């Protein structure tokens, strides 16, 4: 196997984070390689697709196969570019499209236009049943709704952060009700406590889901009365910064390089 960079994305002062494998050299069977490493995502970087400086291509694989867009691989890749070459990247071209991404200090960020909210409606009862939760634990202020780029996450709003932390879902049932996965969250001011269950794409629980944090901002902008412009998402051992302005939604966080493996 070619050598790869072992990163953790969305850390808190060097700790925690969502593991990420990054290959900078061409790899024959990307799907098998990603499955062999077994991280929630592995990213394969290509060369510059055009003469434009700072633009690189990237393909993202879960253990199950390729996906068009994901948050933490793009953030990690943008961070790594500057780490390796001191050569900042401005944009990454993924199958979903061209994404603006950059590094600031020990953090990296990506920007995206807000994804569309809504569409297919979920059956709240089966969602709650799959999570093995008490329906009374959900907040009545926000709906269960789907949102995301390409594949859409199902957002399940809880009233108390503690209830989110205590969830023990029935993963077989989750597979049945979610398009991609269930994103369960509760808010305290601008602080979000969340967990993300995505067994249908081979990840029982994702430690830090950038694309869902991004979609959460769009979801809140649509449904929350006090739509915040900045969020701090605490998902298991990950911490994701989310902000929104006229130019789009930005997610990002601290990245740590643990070493080069092969």
């Amino acid at each position: 196997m070619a050598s790869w960079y072992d990163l953790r994305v969305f850390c808190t002062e060097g700790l925690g984070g969502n593991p990420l494998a990054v290959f900078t050299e061409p790899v024959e069977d990307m799907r098998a390689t990603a499955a062999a490493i077994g991280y929630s995502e592995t990213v394969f970087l290509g060369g510059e697709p055009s003469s434009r400086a700072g633009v690189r291509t990237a393909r993202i694989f879960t253990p199950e196969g390729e996906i068009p867009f994901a948050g933490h691989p793009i953030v990690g890749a943008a961070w790594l570019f500057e780490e390796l070459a001191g050569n900042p990247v401005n944009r990454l071209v993924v199958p979903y499209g061209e994404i603006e991404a950059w590094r600031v200090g020990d953090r990296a960020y990506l920007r995206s236009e807000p994804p569309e909210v809504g569409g297919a409606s979920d059956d709240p009862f089966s969602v709650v049943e799959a999570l093995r939760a008490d329906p009374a634990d959900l907040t009545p202020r926000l709906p269960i709704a789907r949102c995301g780029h390409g594949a859409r996450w199902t957002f399940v709003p809880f009233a108390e952060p503690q209830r989110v932390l205590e969830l023990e879902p029935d993963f077989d049932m989750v597979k049945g009700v979610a398009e991609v996965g269930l994103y369960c969250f509760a808010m305290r001011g601008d602080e979000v406590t969340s967990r993300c269950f995505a067994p249908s794409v081979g990840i029982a629980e994702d430690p830090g889901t950038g694309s869902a944090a991004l979609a959460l901002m769009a979801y809140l902008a649509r449904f929350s009365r006090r739509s915040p412009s900045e969020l701090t998402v605490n998902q298991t051992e990950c911490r994701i910064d989310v902000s929104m302005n006229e130019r789009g939604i930005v997610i990002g966080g601290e990245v740590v390089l643990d070493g080069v493996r092969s």
Partner: protein
Amino acid sequence: MLLAATNAAGSASGEVSRETFGNIPYGLEILFYVLAAGFVGLTAYLFTIRFLNWKRGGADDRSGYVAERAREFSRGMFMKTLLLDKRAGVMHSLLYYGFMVLFIGTITLEINNVSPVKFLVGNTYLAYSFILEIAGLALIAGLILAAARRYVLKPYRLGKTSPEDALILITLLAIAVSGFLAEGARIAVAGFPNFERWSFVGWATGKLLFSWMPHDGVVGVHRALWLLHFATFLLFLAILPITKVRHAITSPINLALHKRERPKGAMRPMPNLMEEEVETIGASAIEDFTWKQLYDTDACTVCGRCTSVCPANGTGKPLDPREIVLKVGEVMARTGGVATPVMVDQEITLTADTVFGRVSSDEVWSCTSCKACDENCPVGIEILDKILDMRRYLSLMESDFPTELGVAYKNLENSSNPWGMGQQSRAEWAEGLDVKVIEPGEPLESEYLYWVGCAGSFDDRNRRVARSTALLLKHAGVDFSILGPSELCTGDPARRSGNEYLFQMLAFQNIETLNEAGVKKVITHCPHCFNVMTNEYPQYGGEYEVIHHSELLQHLIDEGRLTPGDALAGKRIVLHDSCYLGRHNDIYEPPRKVVASIGGVQVLEMDRNRTKSFCCGAGGARMWMEERMGKKINVERTDEALGTEPDIIAVACPFCLVMLDDGAKERGRDDVKVGDLSMLIAASLDTGVQGVGLPGGG
């Protein structure tokens, strides 16, 4: 013309000239000299009384800066400061230059009279005559304009009009008119010799009024008019020291004395109160003021420019800076004992033998210490110093201060910051930004110390300023550390509210911390911290090179180390000047350059900008007092800013940020963002870093 007379036939030799005291009997000539000498003596005596009053004040060293003082004096003599207001400047220039030329012309005439060699002959005499005619007309024109301003147009700032104003205008007008009349009679007595056509006003007056008279009659009329003209001048000499017209002498001298031995932004130093016992603090009795503060009151022209730019006065508070000057002057006069000057308003009653017999504490506490009064005074009166010295007295000798201020004092004493937050949380704003914090006892290893200030450390809106500044400094590769919990309030709110003890307590601790850590260069985003550290810490052994972040950001942008982005392109940004950056430290352009460096933005100005900028209302510890009277100053300023239809109001001071943001919220204008310079640059880069840039996005 002035005091001039000549005999009927021109000079004895028939030359083109005139004989001084022509047609004036010898007895009258003697009377002229006796009375002139007597009145000059009276004027001197009346000025001496005032001088003795000025001497009642304490020491104030104004002996240095001789070249600057000479320059300021000449600026005063040549109306430079006055012409800052064009209309008033033109009016006053006509009046002043007209009078001065006539006065010098009369003295020239007397010199010619006593000189063995006569020089006012031939063409020189004709030119002399002509120039004096022009000067006389200028004086009359100036007087008409002055009367029109005072009695017809009544611009807001002139405010009160007293009989004194009429007395001065009438005296001057009488001098000018009687001069022309006497001249006309003189020319008539001389039989209208052709060369006197150069004295065209006098010629015309003579033709119009006296040409029909028999010669004997004209001789008598001329003598009467000459006496009248002389009498009006004696009247002028008498009112010169006892009315505000004395400013003709006192104001240029006051401008010369204006340059201080301490920086503009520094308050009067006080001895180290931790070590020395002092009997009284601040100013209450006339003897508590300095001689310069007393002299100031006699240099006032009552023009009202100070009042017209005062944010407290403009929003209906009881403070009127002009009244502060006049009231100190009145109290000085009324408590002067044997040296009580003449023409003091007898209606004034003092409730005490101190300045507080005339000045209420509400007036003193309304001041935001914005220094607009001082900066706009055309004669260099130092008004703010007086108010702050009165505050020192009220705060420490009388404990007469707004109750809310007591809370801030308690917080400063117990928590070392006016918010009363725990010192341990001082560095929390920097979370996630990887900022170096100096541990107590450790030396500073970075090039700069970033002095964050209490607002940047504890106030939610201002933490964004500190975070934005820190991010930009790191972005530009500036090597800096912060003190974190060992940084205390600089003491500005304590000092500006008169609590010198509390100020010194905090200042000495900070200076000790800074000196121990070997700090040389300090960056701060707070103009109040900047002012105290730059201008006042040197009074107590703290010498640092302090740079405000507006200057540093401009420098970094100029050097190409920081390139603002274009995320704010198309926005309309209006800049609000901070008093403590602008008027207290003359930093006006760096904030403007920083805002203008942002890609694609349109920079707007309010009508009141730079030296005339209108305070946000938080200076002078007003941040910690309730505003119970009149319109809120911050709302007044926010309304002015909103009048330019901005998307963003840019500020360079933590207190301005809070005040104008509150103002925008009070007006329900959530669409208009208020942001510090660092927030704007960070927002233009749209970094995605939390708690940086403008709240609610770009």
